[in-house]
């Protein structure tokens, strides 16, 4: 838990929101590339007998999302008190 002023919390929250959008953007780009991209290049390829584009895009985006969200939470997001302590002082 970090001690932050009301203002600092908002600076931090803006950073977190921006990072969340960036992560969403990366996932969208990966999703297009691994789905349509792989289908254009190798429409016949398979993984576990299923179409490769499907496995890479659907399972891939899911796993990528989990990894990136864990990164967000551990590296970008910070713990602080959601109540405003300053007011009581």
């Amino acid at each position, binding site marked *: 838990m970090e001690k932050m002023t009301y203002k600092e919390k908002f*600076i931090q*929250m803006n950073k977190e929101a921006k990072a969340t959008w960036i992560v969403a953007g990366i996932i969208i780009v990966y999703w297009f590339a691994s789905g349509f991209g792989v*289908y254009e290049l190798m429409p016949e390829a398979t993984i576990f007998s299923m179409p490769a584009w499907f496995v890479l895009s659907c399972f891939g985006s899911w796993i990528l999302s*989990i990894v990136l969200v864990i990164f*967000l*939470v551990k590296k970008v997001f910070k713990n602080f008190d959601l109540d405003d302590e300053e007011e009581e002082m």
Partner: protein
Amino acid sequence: MDNFLMLAPVFVFFIALLGMGFYVQKTSADAKAKNFSKEYFIGGRSLGGFVLAMTLVATYSSVSSFLSGPGVAWQKGFGWVYYASTQVVAAFIVLGVLGKKMAVIGRKTDSVTVVDVIRKRYGSELLANFSAVVIIVFFTTTMLGQFIGGAQIFSAATGLSYEMGLLFFAIVVVLYTTVGGFNAVAITDTACAVVMVIGMVCLGYAIISKGGGIANIMSVINETSAAAVETGEGFNMISPYAESAGVDTIPMPLYITQWMLCGVTTLGLPQSNVRCLSYKNTQSVHKAMIYGTIVVGAMMVGMHMLGVLSRGVLLSIPEGASTDTVVPSLVTGYMHPLLAGLTIIGPLAATMSTISSLLIAGSSAIVKDIYIHRKEARNEEINQKFVGKISLLCTAFMGTVSVIMAITPPDIIVWINMFAFGGLQTAFFWTLVFGFFWKKANATGALIGSVGGLAFYCVTMAIGFKISTFHNILIGIGTGLILFVIGTYIGKPSEEKVLRMFFPEKY
């Protein structure tokens, strides 16, 4: 006997849900005496990470994720799974972007509903009342749609009549929501999410073992698909475009707008973002982002993929039958009755968890946003006991009305329901995103943006106007954005006192 075996797990589950509702009602009595609406509508801001994640995901995944979606996947193939997989971002975007700001502002302004927050930010009665009405109308119609879907699954799987099915599970969900309030909704949602996953695993096991393994199933699908391409009847199941007779049935523009409708702009859904007001601390929201992403992805990709794989077991459905019947006929046709009962709880749970959340949030729009707000505006004292009574009454009333309408659904409601999901997003997306992240945003902009966006969305949907093959959410969100910006430059800025609270970093 089979029928009994199948109904047994369902009834055990129903009784457990009711038990949770009544238990919560008992344990939260003290907190309710102090501030009824805070406890009843958002559970006293006490949710931990796991429950927050599960209630968010369970509310979001509805009857379509468990029934209609996999049914279409059975028909169209892997393209439909790809189409549904855009939802992997739905859990973390709303929590990551709005989660903490709503929690901090909610605490500072003592807000209990999304409309509370909007009223505080923009200071406009008109905007707040419009938002409350949008919530009430769309939530009621969505609930109705869920009731219809749930009753259909129940009767298809058990052989009971539609009305009996409706009555059974409607009474359960309305009762536990009414007595237990938001905490009961959150806990039962968690139970529902867990059984949805269990149901999915059971179904997956049944399909793959009946089909003789994935490789076997895939060879059936490849043959079916090759035959479809050759004859022009049916769909190319192994292409993302799901071509039928040479025409893309899931064209690229539809995929792009799917990223809005079922991905990014879902952060505007009030039933999702109200959850940002209900959790305990930053640790909870961090955990919920991870758990939520794991579960929503597993469920959306998993269920739709099972829909495709089930083609290896169930080659065709009766002529004229809807693809919605695929999942129920798999469950009843290929599973041991006891296991079938356990599996059928999955889609029922998806329905019930969506209804309960809409019910409690819809009721809060009437009680908190309209009734209590009027009292406060007139400086009248608020009797917590009386608020308690009307809240329960209001929840029960909304639930009962939807159930009665679901017996013979009026066409107009079914029709409005088509606009509900996108309509809610159009009405709230910019109001919330700009409200929290753009200091200049003001009441004029928010009002024109959400009213105009919603109007454009609904009218273009109704008359069937389309830009290429894009979904009309693009029109709704697009015009909403333009009108919002224009309105903001015409209107007066919000009060400085408010801006200092929402944008302290700019001072």
